[in-house]
């Protein structure tokens, strides 16, 4: 009897031990925390690393000085004044900096500015969401122009001696004003007679700049093009193609998001998705790279992890008379200055 009882108890103990062992193995083996990954095959991975790698021989610019911290928590747009001061729009204000990075001044605004430019006479033209405001160098508001409607999302502004051009991503149109704020013309609307297919703006990135030849250049990001218009609204020509693989093309769904024009009439373009700043000559022929994703973000492929990071504003670019290129990093809210590498 004693032996039978002892045997039974041992059996129970062995069973309990086996159950515990199975439990431990299950806990160790089972990946309940997802650390081992989804286990999906290669066809399910999304890798842009290869596309983000840029041939170092194509990089024509260097970054000799540290970036300028704008101090903004949300920066939107950059402009360089004729005197070389750097103007940044962000956080319901305009801040302007010396080349050294010293803050020269700040203009407080009632709302978030979307874009800005500085005229030859020093006046600051600021595009708010739905209207334009003009300030003098001391921050005094000189004018507030007409409201362009609820759908308006002004994303770019440029000014010449007599004309002001404003890009409206919401209405997919360019407004042509005179310098007193009278609307002269709407440019770029669909017009079969003029063979204008209109602007294709999938996201709120729609840039323009007045070219040194007097023609207005407007990015048509959904068509991966830069288009040239007369001030009367005639489409003269366009250039640009899509390509994710070839550096000569504009990547993604809708690029370039921003651009600037150098004194030698060549273009500095800025792309989102695969963040890269590149140079094209005046005819739109690719000539080189200012900086790629690796230089600008530290990553060659995807630069974002969370949706919020991915959907943050695109980088902006501006140039000065000395062919320097100013890149506004809207993630870190800093200005990075690139200068041309001298040919040996």
């Amino acid at each position, binding site marked *: *009897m*004693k032996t039978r*009882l002892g045997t*039974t*108890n041992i059996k129970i103990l062995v069973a309990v031990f086996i159950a515990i062992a199975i439990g431990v193995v299950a806990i160790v083996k089972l*990946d*309940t*925390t*997802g*650390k081992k*990954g*989804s*286990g*999906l095959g290669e*066809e*399910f*991975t*999304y*890798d*842009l*690393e290869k*596309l983000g790698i840029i041939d170092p021989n194509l990089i024509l610019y260097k970054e000799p000085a540290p970036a300028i911290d704008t101090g903004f928590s949300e920066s939107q747009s950059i402009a360089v004044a004729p005197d070389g001061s750097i103007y940044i729009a962000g956080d319901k204000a305009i801040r302007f900096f010396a080349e050294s990075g010293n803050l020269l001044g700040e203009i407080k605004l009632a709302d*978030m500015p979307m874009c800005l430019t500085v005229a030859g006479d020093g006046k600051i033209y600021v595009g708010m*969401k739905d209207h334009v405001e003009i300030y003098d160098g001391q921050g005094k508001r000189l004018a507030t122009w007409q409201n362009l409607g609820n759908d308006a*999302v002004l994303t770019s502004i440029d000014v010449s001696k007599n004309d002001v051009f404003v890009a409206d*991503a*919401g209405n997919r149109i360019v407004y042509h004003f005179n310098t007193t704020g009278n609307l002269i013309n709407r440019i770029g609307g*669909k017009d079969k007679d003029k063979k204008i*297919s*209109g602007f*294709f703006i*999938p*996201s*709120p990135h729609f840039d323009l700049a007045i070219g040194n030849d007097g023609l207005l250049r407007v990015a048509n990001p*959904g*068509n*991966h093009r830069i288009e040239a218009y007369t001030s009367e609204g005639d489409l003269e020509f366009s250039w640009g193609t*899509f390509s*994710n*693989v070839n550096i000569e093309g504009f*990547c*993604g*769904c*809708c690029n370039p998001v921003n651009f600037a024009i150098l004194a030698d009439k060549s273009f500095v373009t800025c792309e*989102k*998705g695969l963040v890269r700043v590149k140079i094209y000559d005046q005819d739109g022929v690719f000539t080189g790279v200012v900086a790629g994703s690796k230089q600008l973000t530290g990553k060659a492929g*995807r630069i*974002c*992890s*969370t*949706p*919020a*990071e*991915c*959907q943050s*504003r695109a980088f902006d670019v501006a140039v000065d008379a000395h062919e320097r290129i100013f890149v506004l990093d809207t993630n870190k809210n800093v200005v990075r200055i690139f200068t041309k590498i001298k040919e040996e």
Partner: protein
Amino acid sequence: MTENKNDINRRHFLRSSLWAAGLTGLGAAAGFLSRKTHARNTVWQIDPEICVACGNCATYCVLEESAVKCVHAHAICGYCRICFGFFGPEPADINEAAENQLCPTGAIIRKYMKDDHPYYEYTIDEPLCMGCGKCVLGCNTFGNGSLFLQVRHDRCLNCNECSIAAACPSGAYKRVPADKPYLLKKVDTVRNSETDQTHLSKKEKRMISKKARRFSNGVDSA
């Protein structure tokens, strides 16, 4: 005498075991009932602002075919001709041929919209979607982030312990009220087509960013 003592011990052992089992069962039943009552009012959902589309939703669900599917917020879609939620990163051509598509199961339908502009509408063929989130990565990287993952409540069993939630690297799974079971992306009127993260505190945003970065680095190095 010794035998009798052993008999009592054995009886005690069995009686104690029965008591313990009974009490454990009672406790478990009470816990199950209370959780069941709690679960009746809330359901699992993915916060699209936190989701990093890691792919775990496709494989960790207890269902053979995951309850997670991609959904499309047409209000924030750019209707792009070259949509990188639809096309792979290196499409040979811009057409609907299978080799150009990003989705491994061909679950996204691209349809030309009659307009002078080259607008295209993208819809999800739900039975084909397995919730891998590959299209979400493409759309987030290049587009407006209009494609995102959601737990579909016509499929979800609403388990007390969701196995995908346990395996979610960014902590995107939440209990949400059963009468508002979806967390949909919103249109930001100022920036026209961006995601709304205003409900998150700065600390939460920092945490999400940190977690997501850690996750990305893990994937990159793998």
